[in-house]
């Protein structure tokens, strides 16, 4: 019974992960398809309207009690995260998609874990091991292949 429960959770986890990968993957393609008739600024704002609607519905349906008891300080951090991720990150990501194309921009932007690792080494004192070094090298080679083309 326990094994059955674990198996079900694993399969659910895999399906949700696939949904996440498909969602991230399709997002760039839809944006690129719309870029011929709209500026990056407008695309960023309109995409955030639908993103906000979907995530708010999910958050309210799963975490209603938690939302009602949020500390006021949490909203300052939400604002900071919103500014960095969307006014900064998503806006620049859409700019990159409009200039390079969805496939190239996605390959470069997916190097986010590398920057997270660099920040962790710089500010959290983590060390650079073989895996991190080899991964960094591969990301640089991969991005070079994607960007430098005849």
């Amino acid at each position, binding site marked *: 019974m326990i094994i059955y429960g674990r198996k079900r*959770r694993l399969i*659910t*986890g*895999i399906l*949700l992960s696939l949904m*996440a*990968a498909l*969602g*991230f*993957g*399709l997002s760039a*393609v839809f*944006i*690129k398809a*719309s870029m011929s*008739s709209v500026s990056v*600024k407008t695309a960023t*704002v309109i*995409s*955030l*309207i639908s*993103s*906000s*609607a979907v995530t708010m519905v999910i958050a309210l349906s799963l*975490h209603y009690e*938690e939302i009602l008891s*949020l500390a006021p300080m*949490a909203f300052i*951090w939400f*604002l900071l*995260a*919103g*500014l*960095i*991720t*969307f006014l*900064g*990150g998503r*806006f*620049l*990501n859409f*700019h990159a998609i409009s200039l*390079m*194309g*969805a496939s*190239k921009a*996605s*390959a470069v*932007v997916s*190097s986010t874990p590398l920057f*997270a690792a660099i920040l962790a080494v710089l500010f959290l004192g*983590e060390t650079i*091991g073989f*895996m*991190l070094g080899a991964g*960094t090298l591969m*990301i640089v080679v*991969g*991005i070079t292949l994607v960007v430098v*083309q005849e």
Partner: protein
Amino acid sequence: MRETVKKITYYGLLFAVCAAFLYALSALVGKKITNDFSSPMVASAFSILFGLIATGSVFFSTVSREARNLSGRSWALIGLSGCASALGVSGWYLALNVTQVVVVAPIVAVYPLITILMASLFLRGIEKVTKQTVAGGIIVVIGVLFVGFGT
């Protein structure tokens, strides 16, 4: 002409690298939020809402001018893009709720390959997907997996 294309590509690269850096920075802020204040799903929903308010305020004049003349097709495509990325974020957090990160991270990390596949299927007239892009994308994904397991 070739110089212009090169310049556009390198500006695109610069923007993409800056976006990757900002997403990494936001992961650090997200870690602080989820440690001290809320669950990842709530943090994500409110960050997007505040991001919308901030972005809407900064770009208000451009958006209000363009939105009126936008075709239904453009509205639909951009709206679908927002929904897709919201499903991406929600799927990521919900998956982490039911299984370990060692299962979730490698599956989600392949998303650039999904973008490349979808672009080659649906953006045929808009962008060209070369073998070199596919090879580069695969190498980046493997590198991201190495970095993920190495930290």
